[in-house]
């Protein structure tokens, strides 16, 4: 019997019992026929959430019969042939009740090709054999003339050169001429792992297991454009176990005491005042204030009112917003985050907040040698002692 993608027509039928899903057969009570050209006929009986399959020439009583050739049948079942295309193109024909036959789709789990080991040699053969078919000629610019050579060591190793010239790709099993770049791997196994994404190029190079001669940059930038990514033929063949993922929300109600230091800062906001505290030792200002100066390891008791005007010190524009951590609501983007250097503070003694939305493009960041845009807070009318007592900052004009 013929094999397609390593699978026989019989394999599909013989595995039906194992792949049967009783939950998909709840309202099915019918006989279905399969007539596979040059292979034979099979009859599927589904009744009372159970099924039987038999090879028989007698398809009488079947509510619908599928007709196809062996390659199409195996292809559709293994995902190598698109079922809809095959049907529309007449490669699959259903005689009888189409609607009823449609139900067979739910009866079985997907057919999985039995796992076969691929050796390093198999992989190398497959990887280099697919290079020319993976070449995307229309991506090659006029006049591009490069060659990429591979010198792979170890028992399975070998040499290859890939030429790209006149929008054509050719490959030889030698290293010829002066390649644009030559990749050298001490062991071909590492090359296979690299292509399969199991190990990255940096670590291979860093550990001395691989190296490159010539214009590696040319290869690094061109290769991903010129070639389709290598597809691991084994990747799709892992038996499909139904892996359940649970979605849960973890929610713990909390009350956060603010204490005398953060508490004073928040109370200040309520009164439209911004308090920093000043280290008695090094003199730096902390915003928001903290219990100690961590640099000096001393308690910081002196509070000073700063601002409320200041200049923009650092800024960013956020396009991909995280949800508001307290409400779960997603903010409208873009919005601008700024660090404000308040009047009365210096250096990096800044406090982060937001800038008025319509002014994102107008503000300028400052740094050690340049002043940033002057800004002032816009206060919320009903203030409760939290960060949103300041709605945002706006340009102080």
């Amino acid at each position: 019997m013929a094999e397609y993608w390593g699978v026989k027509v019989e394999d599909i039928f013989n595995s039906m019992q194992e792949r049967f899903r009783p939950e998909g057969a709840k309202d099915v009570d019918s006989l279905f026929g399969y007539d596979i050209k040059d292979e034979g006929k099979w009859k599927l009986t589904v009744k009372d959430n159970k099924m039987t399959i038999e090879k028989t020439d007698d398809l009488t009583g079947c509510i619908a019969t599928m007709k196809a050739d062996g390659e199409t049948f195996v292809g559709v079942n293994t995902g190598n042939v698109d079922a809809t295309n095959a049907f529309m193109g007449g490669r699959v024909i259903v005689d009888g009740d189409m609607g009823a036959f449609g139900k067979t789709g739910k009866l079985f789990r997907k057919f999985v090709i039995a796992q076969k080991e691929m050796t390093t040699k198999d992989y190398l053969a497959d990887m280099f054999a697919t290079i020319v078919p993976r070449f995307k000629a229309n991506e090659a610019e006029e006049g591009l003339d490069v060659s990429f050579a591979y010198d792979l060591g170890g028992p399975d190793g070998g040499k290859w050169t890939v030429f790209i010239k006149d929008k054509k790709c050719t490959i030889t099993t030698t290293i010829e001429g002066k390649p644009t770049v030559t990749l050298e791997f001490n062991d071909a196994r590492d090359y296979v792992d690299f292509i399969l994404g199991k190990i990255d190029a940096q670590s291979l190079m860093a550990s001395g297991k691989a190296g490159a001669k010539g214009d590696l940059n040319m290869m690094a930038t061109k290769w991903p454009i010129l070639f389709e990514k290598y597809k691991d033929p084994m990747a799709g063949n892992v038996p499909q176990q139904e892996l359940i993922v649970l979605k849960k929300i973890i929610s713990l109600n909390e009350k956060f005491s603010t204490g005398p230091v953060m508490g004073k800062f928040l109370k200040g906001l309520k009164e439209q005042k911004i308090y920093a505290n000043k280290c008695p030792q090094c003199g730096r200002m902390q915003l928001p204030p903290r219990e100690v100066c961590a640099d000096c390891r001393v308690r910081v008791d002196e509070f000073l009112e700063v601002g409320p005007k200041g200049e923009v010190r650092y800024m960013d524009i956020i396009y991909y917003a995280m949800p508001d951590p307290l409400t779960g609501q997603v903010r409208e983007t873009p919005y601008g985050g700024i660090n404000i250097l308040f009047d009365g503070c210096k250096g990096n003694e800044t406090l982060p907040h937001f800038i008025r939305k319509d002014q994102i493009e107008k503000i300028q960041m400052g740094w050690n040698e340049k002043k940033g845009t002057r800004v002032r807070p816009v206060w919320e009318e009903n203030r409760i002692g939290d960060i949103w007592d300041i709605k945002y900052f706006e340009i102080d004009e």
Partner: protein
Amino acid sequence: MGKRIAICAVAQIKNDAEYWHLRFQNMLLECFESIMDQTKVTFDMEKGIRTIITCSNDMFDARTISNNGVTDVVGAQFRGEEKMDQESINGLGYAMASILSGHDDVILFMGHCKESQGESRRMISNLSFDPFYTRPLGMDYHNVDAMQARAYMEKSKVTDEHLAKIVVRSRQNAQKNPYARENKLVSEQEVLNSPMYSDPLRELHMYPITDWAYGMLLCCEERVKEFTKKPVWITGYGSCMDRYFLGDKDLTSNFSLKNASKRAYEKAGIKDPKKDIQVFELSDHAAYQLPMWAEGVGIADEGQGGKWIDDGGMDKFNVNLSGGHLNGNPLLLGGAARAMECYYQLSGQAGDRQVKGAKRAVAQAATGGAGQHQAVIVMEA
């Protein structure tokens, strides 16, 4: 025998039902300043503190990498900082490893937990169970402990009356401990009438929600005189992790505690804990655990917990004169509280509860449901 390290000083704030007016940073800062004041230790890179060990828990703090919230108030900025996110007693084992390896002479060990912050400690302990099976069943430390309590009480003939006696005694002892949580004294009858949480455990059988913070300074033997005249030595440490899945283990066997004690006793050269040790601080998150752990550390005979209580074992062996965990410590920090009580006893600073001539003490602590992980520390004057 193992090598030893010294506890040079300890500091704590009073255990309290709720420090509503303080952040845990404020709580820690008081302990930090007290340690600095007592020992005059510095953060000099050659001679001072290079490594700080903190104990806290992300779930109780509702903050990922909870130690980052406190590095400034424990002096840890620009120094090494390591976090113990398990029973605090293991932080002492960690400090011991750092010092005895020779990499650090001095370790500052700080811990905090504000149990009043979260709405439900049961929801927090529920999160220590796997999300697929035991968590949806609603397992938490209360009902899992109750399962163990029922099995243990049956085996060791411990009754509801015994548990009432333990609770009454705990609160009486706590009266003599200035750092103990202030609870009202209760009668045995009140305990027996208190609401049933998870049968056989009643409300008063469980330690109450508590906020607390502490600090300790630990040091190698060679340099101890720089920081204190009255060191207390840690001479043995042992810990043991039991099977995680409740269904896998014999809840009454004390397997992990017996193992942890054995290791600690061997290192400290203890042959008979009944004779060689004068003070015991046991981790009674729930009343039934006191006789159970007493069996585990070898001062009550196997299966005789009930009789041991009747025979006055709790007082005879000076168990939990501080009031114990049952009177109120944060779950995470009970081990540090136990060790600090041993420190006070061995350095003669235990005031009205002082055991005369105490030379050796044992601090024990459990983490997890039904005492899954156990650690034991032997301390000497």
